[in-house]
């Protein structure tokens, strides 16, 4: 089947989930070592700023200690693996292929070592149209992260693309 033969990629589940907060997750405590590795990977092959790995230096900044880079993901490496692409192998069938369309993130307080982050998400909206990839579904999802004190860490509006 080609994507042109599919009538829609919108599912009944999507209608049911619209604007409903779900998928609440609680992270493991953020560790200094996780922050250091994240910074090394993201700045590779250059050395990352000391703010992300040098506790003595970071203590003298406005942050009073190490903070995580703003895109640090405390939800990486969960024990219980969500069902996904890894187990299924590459997805090649029309309507199952996906891409990251982009995002807007608004930041509150930074993440620090010892923080425990709670996340929740909701499906905000979608738009379906024919593109050069065939029938293509653009979904807009909102995510909110708060720390153990209830302070807002960030909100993200992300666009997913399925074709």
């Amino acid at each position, binding site marked *: 089947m080609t994507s042109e033969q599919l009538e829609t990629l919108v599912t009944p589940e999507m209608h049911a989930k619209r604007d409903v907060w779900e998928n609440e997750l609680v992270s493991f405590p953020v560790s200094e070592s996780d922050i250091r590795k994240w910074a090394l990977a993201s700045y590779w092959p250059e050395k990352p700023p000391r703010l992300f790995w040098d506790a003595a230096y970071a203590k003298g900044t406005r942050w009073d200690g190490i903070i995580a880079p703003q895109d640090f993901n405390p939800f*990486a490496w969960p024990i219980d693996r969500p069902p996904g692409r890894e187990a299924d192998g590459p997805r090649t069938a029309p309507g199952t292929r996906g891409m*990251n369309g982009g995002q807007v993130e608004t930041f509150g307080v930074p993440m620090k070592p010892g923080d425990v982050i709670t996340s929740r998400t909701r499906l905000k909206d979608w738009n379906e149209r024919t593109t050069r990839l065939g029938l293509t579904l653009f979904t807009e999802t909102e995510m909110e992260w708060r720390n153990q004190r209830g302070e807002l860490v960030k909100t993200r509006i992300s666009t997913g693309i399925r074709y």
Partner: protein
Amino acid sequence: MPVNVHFEDVKVGDEIPAWSRTTDFMNWNRYAAVNDEFVYIHMDDEAGRAALNERGAFGMGNLRYTYMLDALRDWIGDEAVIREVGLQFRAINQKHDTLTVTGKITDMRVEDGEHRVYLDMNVVNQDGQPTCPGHAVVVLPSRG
């Protein structure tokens, strides 16, 4: 603590210092490892071609987002705040591309007690092709 740049030091039209990385599996695999982002299209040329990219595996959009944040942090220094960043992924990051983060100040305002600087952002490849137009809002220290 030294400040890289004060609010009073910049003006609309200024550009941030260029920030570049040449990427391949060495960058992608490290990022995949910390972000637990093991997706075949970023790991395997055959999967990349099956996803309609003739040149095979391609880089993560999330890593280009990271580069945008890194470039902003390197520019503003440790005493400033990144308040918002957004982007759209319009083109693929191919293997061995040299990516350069660009940013240009479009507005400056004092809002909610913060000295905010607004920027148009992008990540441009070695051919000058913009790959992910976006925006950023940073809060700079003020001399005032």
